[in-house]
């Protein structure tokens, strides 16, 4: 809930200000180069920091008889303005120690003038200034809500700068760039806002207004260099000094220093009046320097970079939002008004395709439908029909967006009778086919309000026939009209890439073989990712773990007699080309920073590890426990692993055989080595599991036993911290 508040405000603010923000950022990038160009001319004199006004002011008056004022800019260049003998006013940069002319200031480029006016006021004067002020203020709120979103994403302030989970380009860099540049953007926004607000504050009084003209003396006459106040003031604190215009006694030296303004009697050197600058004024000056980057070249360039980041944020932010909106939460009706509810459970979004298709059809027929995640189950006062479409995760578990369903059903007993129908999605090749769908059925049977309209329907391998079977039955029973959506009849061929077979082995005694592909389109595949292949060019998809070996995608395949995927792969010969899709598997990656990795596999589960071991350039000690039935099935990997051992990429190898010799499973072997396992976990090492789900269960039980020696609570924690990684099927 809290997340959505921050996200919602972050998005609302961004939408309401993005147009003006874009203008401000683009012009801001350009304007940042103005101080950089200025500074690059470097008229700063070497003696600048040691001089006092008593040395500088008389000298410049002597060198420039028509002198009107001397000023020091943010780059500490000393500028003299004087009436030239040949007529007209002149401005030159000088060396304050010698009066030597160093250069002539150039006029502000028309481009910068134009950009400044656009940046400050959009060419629409006061209204524009107020608009840009509001934009700056919104930027503060965007930055602050952004900071909180990062904190939430990273589970606390402590992890603010720790690794970000890599999910899609826009999302990843939105967060990664965000964390660094947020603070610079906040500085831009705060100073910009303050300058806008400052316009409505009273300006500080002028020292000249405090002069009592009747008290001005003309004696004792002093030399300019003898004026105490000039002797006590270093040149570095000067902003501007105006020489008296005439010999009239009421004329004076006007001196603007960093913190105050003075009027000095031109004959006696007495201070006629003094005005300290207010805090609000000094803060405005400070804001101006920081906001414009006049403080220094590096800061100015950082400002330019931060402005460029804002543009990237605008792009990536909207990209993320569009992606998030697509397919989901496009609800036309509210949950409380809906007659038909579609609740979806899906781990990687596949089931949404089906749910969305029927949602769209029902809406088109004018039905009041509401679609959401199973975890969002709540009170639905007007619901008559409930359709649950869900996949199953692992061995019969709830997908991550359905985990809270059981609790929520208990929490929200519905007030009226609701008819329901459950559709389970899965593949018959798993023993617990559609288990979670049946579990939901049991949950609903216990309630007083749920009435089944149909038994649980299962859809094997996203089969359109299976789905259309349910659809016919459901429309028949409920009276809603629907046709099989065409998009479900066609295979999901988006993102398919070409791969060509570079080499393969023949099936060994255990019918296992290795096949390698190369693909210019899949160079970014990483060991641990999955390759989805479509053996019949239809909706049926098979996933294989990738090991990246010598830049090739390598799969370890066990040939099953009627296996759809394995026999398809077995028919391939060197040079053949197939189409497949890469499925990223972020949670199963070789850890970048760890002291030790223990890899545990059985059978073809060794596939991703073969890639990870060859890529172990940092020589992190890896211990591999691999289980096979017979020694002969290991011969496929033996030469390769021996080479890795001799190279030092692999620290140790434990071969575990289940049908020969010691006849044990990897879990047994781990238990035997429990001291080493415990040591590894205690030192922050990582354990990776890949293979069958039953192996995962056995190994997890063993790990639980090993951990319970130390602290019974540790195993779930280790899983949560990513110290135990699993990819089992």
């Amino acid at each position, binding site marked *: 809930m809290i997340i959505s508040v921050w996200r919602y405000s972050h998005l609302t603010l961004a939408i309401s200000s993005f147009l003006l923000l874009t203008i401000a950022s683009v012009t801001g990038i350009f304007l940042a180069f103005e101080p950089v160009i200025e500074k690059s001319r470097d008229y700063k004199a070497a003696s600048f920091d040691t001089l006092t006004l008593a040395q500088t002011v008389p000298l410049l008056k002597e060198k420039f008889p028509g002198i009107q004022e001397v000023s020091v800019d943010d780059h500490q260049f000393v500028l003299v303005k004087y009436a030239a003998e040949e007529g007209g006013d002149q401005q030159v940069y000088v060396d304050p120690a010698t009066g030597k002319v160093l250069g002539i200031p150039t006029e*502000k480029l028309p481009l910068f003038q134009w950009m400044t*006016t656009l940046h400050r006021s959009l*060419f629409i004067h006061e209204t524009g200034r107020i608009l840009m002020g509001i934009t700056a203020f919104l930027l503060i709120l965007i930055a602050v809500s952004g900071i909180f979103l990062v904190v939430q994403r990273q589970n606390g302030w402590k992890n603010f700068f720790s690794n970000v989970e890599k999910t899609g380009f826009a999302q990843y860099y939105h967060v990664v760039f965000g964390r660094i540049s947020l603070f610079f953007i906040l500085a831009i926004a705060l100073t910009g806002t303050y300058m806008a607000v400052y316009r409505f504050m009273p300006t500080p009084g002028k020292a*000249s207004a405090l002069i009592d003209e009747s008290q001005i003396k003309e004696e004792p006459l002093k030399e300019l260099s003898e004026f105490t106040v000039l002797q006590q003031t270093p040149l570095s604190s000067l902003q501007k000094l105006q020489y008296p215009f005439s010999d009239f006694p009421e004329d004076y030296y006007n001196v603007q220093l960093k913190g105050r303004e003075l009027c000095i009697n031109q004959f006696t050197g007495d201070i006629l009046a003094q005005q300290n600058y207010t805090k609000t004024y000094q803060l405005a000056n400070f804001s101006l320097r920081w906001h414009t980057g006049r403080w220094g070249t590096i800061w100015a360039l950082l400002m330019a970079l931060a402005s460029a980041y804002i543009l990237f944020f605008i792009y990536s932010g909207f990209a993320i939002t569009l992606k998030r909106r697509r397919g989901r939460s496009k609800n036309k009706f509210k949950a409380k008004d809906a007659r038909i509810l579609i609740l979806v459970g899906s781990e990687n979004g596949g089931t949404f395709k089906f749910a969305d298709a029927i949602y769209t059809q029902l809406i088109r027929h004018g039905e009041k439908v509401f679609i959401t995640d199973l975890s969002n189950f709540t009170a639905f006062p007007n619901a008559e029909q409930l359709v649950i479409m869900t996949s199953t995760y692992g061995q019969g578990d709830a997908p991550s967006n359905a985990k809270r369903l059981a609790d929520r059903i208990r929490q929200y007993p519905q007030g009226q009778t609701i008819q329901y129908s459950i559709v389970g999605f899965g593949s018959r090749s798993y023993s617990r086919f559609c288990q979670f769908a049946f579990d939901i059925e049991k949950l609903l049977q216990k309630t007083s309000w749920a009435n089944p309209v149909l038994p649980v329907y299962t859809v094997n391998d996203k089969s359109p026939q299976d789905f259309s079977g349910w659809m016919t039955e459901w429309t028949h029973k409920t009276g809603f009209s629907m046709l099989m959506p065409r998009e479900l009849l066609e295979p999901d061929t988006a993102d398919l890439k070409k791969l060509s077979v570079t080499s393969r082995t023949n099936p060994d005694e255990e019918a296992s073989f290795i096949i390698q592909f190369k693909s210019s389109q899949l160079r970014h595949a990483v060991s641990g990712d999955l390759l989805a292949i479509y053996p019949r060019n239809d909706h049926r998809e098979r996933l294989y773990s990738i090991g990246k070996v010598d830049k090739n995608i390598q799969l370890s395949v066990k040939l099953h007699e009627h296996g759809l995927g394995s026999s398809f792969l077995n028919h391939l010969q060197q040079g053949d080309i197939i189409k497949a899709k890469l499925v990223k598997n972020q949670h199963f990656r070789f850890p970048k920073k760890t002291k030790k990795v223990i890899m545990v596999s059985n059978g073809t589960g060794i596939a991703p590890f073969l890639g990870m071991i060859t890529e172990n350039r940092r020589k992190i000690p890896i211990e591999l426990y691999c289980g096979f039935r017979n020694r002969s099935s290991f011969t496929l990997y033996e030469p390769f692993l021996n080479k890795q051992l001799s190279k030092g990429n692999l620290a140790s190898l434990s071969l575990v055989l289940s049908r020969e010799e010691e006849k044990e499973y990897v879990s047994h072997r781990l238990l035997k080595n429990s001291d080493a396992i415990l040591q590894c976990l205690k030192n922050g090492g990582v354990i990776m599991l890949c293979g069958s789900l039953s192996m995962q269960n056995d190994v997890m039980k063993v790990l639980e036993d090993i951990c319970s020696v130390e602290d019974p609570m540790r195993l779930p924690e280790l899983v949560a911290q990513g110290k135990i990684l699993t990819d089992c099927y």
Partner: protein
Amino acid sequence: MKLIIKSLIAFSLFFISSAGMAQTSSYKCMIQMNSYQGEKAYVIISLINRKGEYEKTLRVLGPDKQWFNTLKEWYKFQTKSKEKISAVTGASIGGGDRAVVTLAIDSKKLNAGYTLRFESAVEEKLYHTKDAEVPLTTAGLAAKTDGKGYIRYVRFSGS
């Protein structure tokens, strides 16, 4: 035909300006502003002829062309005459500040019925067409002239 006219104009302009330059006098002028709240003021100093019409822009104190149209009377003359003013622009002047400028004026215009007009405007505030007016006479330039708007007074000294 057009070309001939153009060259004639160019030639005569050149003649007039070079003839004028020989007899130009420089006047140092100090503008003391009142203490007022708000943005810096744009001040324009113009030479006004005997008929009370604008003849020449002597100085524009204000950097941004976007704001020139707020000084309406002068702007009308400016757009009509298409006078080049980029050489005589400078910074605007804040409340309570003073600015010193050197004006180059044709000596023949002194004591010949001309006036120096100081008009001023502040963003989103009042515009003063005749904030201060100084008769271009020996006596007028010697005196201190009070302003009616953002300008407190104007003072000259020859050089």
